[in-house]
């Protein structure tokens, strides 16, 4: 009685995916697939568009992290046009990007992931969600909604649009910040920092402690990691820096985003529209075997926390030290993505404050002169979902003649498939499965926040 269980749609994640669990005659897991269902074709339909318009087209790749695409794209166009943003333009972009990280992490942890932990993985699906969370923990829920809204509105007010932004422009930023705005943003961010620290404590005490056994096991796999670090001191970076590709034994190479093609490749399977990125430079090929994966590395919060030497802001650094002393480096447990996410939440708040306190932030010189021309440029940022690469070629008119995009989630497609397989084959035995068990399989995906 072999059969297939179709978990569709995978819910409380950002994209369109389905999990298929193939059971054999004895009701044990034969194989699993995480099918990525959607393809829209951005790489192709930006061809011919004036490059300076592209940052406000590609943001529509994702409405949860539009700032990431917007800015990676701006960086790519800068370099294709040979423009260097002014220092203030550069910093304003970074500020918007880290602020967007703040919102994203609140959204992901509390709206999407937390219901599993607060209400329990086996709770009925009708209550295992933000609506249920409101009933179970109304004060917390109110606070969460308020904080997310605060962050979102701060960005919206300063940059005109928080979703599908337009304020980042080739050469820098569209408008300077005035003192009044700076004060207001600082005040708001300080509130967010307090909340971020509270959220981390809350999770350490109420979530991670309680679910330690699940964390160690659920969807656990062993892989390498990729993330951005500061060029000088190797500390965590989200907006600009070099990339570090680490093997599971902790050894690593560092490289500039421009050279990505020498290090990573994209593998295609016929059963999903998303490509699967892997470490080409390890020269071992691509294999998702659970026991001996080949070329597989992960990105996103846990990866960044693993590859960095340290974090440049004090509270996040303290949290990182505590994390490392518990889980080592690199930490492999999949559910630790949530832990790492909250450390990054604290970092993002602290970094925003740091940028707002920088004396040059209100300088009116926010955009450098640019001329559309032929060239090629690679723009890399760290999106909440991982390393994001936009690579454009422009013609003599400054219009896009070719584009290659590697979006955050795609690096994690192979690892997610492995985590699903691992979770399903551990949890489903001899034909015994339940809604709660299948939800735990989904939790393995949710941790990655795809």
């Amino acid at each position, binding site marked *: 009685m072999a*059969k*297939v*269980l*179709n978990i569709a*749609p995978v*819910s409380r*994640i*950002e*994209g*369109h995916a389905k999990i298929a*669990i193939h059971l054999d005659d004895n009701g044990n897991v034969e194989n699993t697939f995480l099918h990525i*269902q*959607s393809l*829209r*074709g951005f*790489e*192709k*339909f930006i061809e*011919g568009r*004036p490059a*300076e318009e592209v940052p*406000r*087209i590609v943001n*529509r*790749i*994702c*409405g949860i992290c539009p700032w990431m695409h917007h800015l990676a794209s701006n960086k790519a166009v800068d370099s294709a046009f040979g423009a260097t943003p002014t220092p203030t333009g550069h910093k304003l972009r970074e500020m918007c990007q880290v602020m967007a990280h703040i919102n994203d992490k609140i959204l992901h942890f509390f709206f999407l992931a937390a219901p599993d932990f607060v209400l329990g993985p086996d709770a009925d*699906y*009708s209550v*295992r969600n933000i*609506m249920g969370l409101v009933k179970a923990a109304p004060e917390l829920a109110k606070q969460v909604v308020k904080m997310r809204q605060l962050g*979102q509105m701060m960005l*919206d007010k300063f*940059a*005109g*649009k928080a*979703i*599908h932004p*337009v304020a980042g*422009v080739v*050469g820098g930023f*569209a*408008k300077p910040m005035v003192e*009044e705005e700076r004060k207001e943003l600082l005040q708001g961010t300080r509130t967010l920092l307090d909340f971020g620290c509270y959220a981390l404590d809350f999770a350490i005490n109420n979530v991670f402690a309680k679910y330690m056994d699940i964390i160690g096991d659920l969807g656990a796999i062993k892989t390498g990691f990729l993330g951005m670090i500061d060029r000088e001191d190797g500390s965590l970076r989200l907006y600009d820096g070099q990339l570090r590709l680490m093997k599971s034994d902790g050894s690593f190479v560092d490289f500039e985003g421009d050279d*990505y*093609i020498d290090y990573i*490749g994209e*593998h*295609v*399977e*016929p*059963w999903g529209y998303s*490509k699967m*990125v892997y470490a080409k430079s390890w020269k071992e090929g*691509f294999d998702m075997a659970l026991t001996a994966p080949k070329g597989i590395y992960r990105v996103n919060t846990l990866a960044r926390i693993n590859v960095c030497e340290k974090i440049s802001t004090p509270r996040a650094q303290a949290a990182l030290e505590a994390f490392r002393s518990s889980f080592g480096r690199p930490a492999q447990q999949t559910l630790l993505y949530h832990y790492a996410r909250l450390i990054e939440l604290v970092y993002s708040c602290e970094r925003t404050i740091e940028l707002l306190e920088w004396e040059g932030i209100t300088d009116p010189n926010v955009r450098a002169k640019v*001329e559309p021309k032929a060239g090629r440029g690679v723009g890399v940022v760290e999106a909440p979902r991982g390393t994001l690469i936009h690579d454009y070629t422009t013609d003599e008119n400054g219009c896009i003649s070719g584009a*290659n995009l*590697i979006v955050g989630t795609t690096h994690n497609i192979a690892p997610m498939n492995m985590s699903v397989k691992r979770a399903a084959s551990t949890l489903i035995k001899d034909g015994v499965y339940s*809604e709660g068990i299948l*939800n735990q399989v989904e939790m393995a995906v949710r941790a990655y926040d795809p």
Partner: protein
Amino acid sequence: MAVTAALEWLGSCSGCEIAILNIGEDLLPLITETLDIVHAPLLMDHKYFGQCGEGVALEIPDAVIGIVTGCVNNREHLEVLQEMRTKCKVLIALGTCATHGGIPALMNGQDQQESWQGIFTTVSTDPGAEIPDVEVPPPLDRVYACDEKVRIDMQLPGCPPNPEFIAEVIVSLVEGRDPILPSKSVCDTCLTKREGKGTVDKVKRFIENVEFEPGAPIDEMRCLLEQGYMCMGPVTAAGCAKRGVPGCISARVPCRGCFGPVRKGGNQLLDMMNGLASNGIDYKSVVDRRSILRFTGAHGRLRPVKKHVAREKS
């Protein structure tokens, strides 16, 4: 009694869903008291094929209010949209992808097969890769807006739509009255100073910032069209303005038309070119005119460029 609601996303970016979450203070009462959400992939775990995935037919529960976002570009989108139509009393198309095709409908301007092939043969993709076709929904011949496929009761464009009006549409439905929505153009909601076009006879690309006094209120800034930038405010439906200023204009950036045309069947490219021409501005100075249709490529608006046939003398 709460009103049942089902949310679905088709070819979307989730921005519309985030716009819903941005409703703010009223969000919690809306999703917990006003509405009883029975299906919504981003927020809850109701499954198409039963909670244990054993079903064979895709199923969404009955609901009074249905909200769909995103364009229709593959078979699964179509199936989900049809199921939503069957199960929901009132079906709302939310966001410009759902109402006009949105950014994904830019694909309608290209040869789809060739483009997809291209996507699977980029520099970083392993050689020999083919377009996936196992267990993934096959594409439709082009990208459609929702109303090209099923009857839609209410359209609320915007990329993303304005949270204020999302709330208004939902609340008005629950209260059984017509929603109060803006009906004019973006310019009608814009406070910039208008003094006449002056000497502008060409539009420039947006490669330098517009002129304005930092920190000064928006009504002290000259209209961007009058500053010589192509601003699509005149040909775009109002609705994005928050705090009294259209979204992009408050960032000091020209409008690109994300709310679609002012009239439902309108044509932003034609209207914009006609507007420029009748103001003595050279419409040929617009680089890549086709991208003016970047939000409204469904409904047959955007089509692949035809190879030029040798022009005969007439």
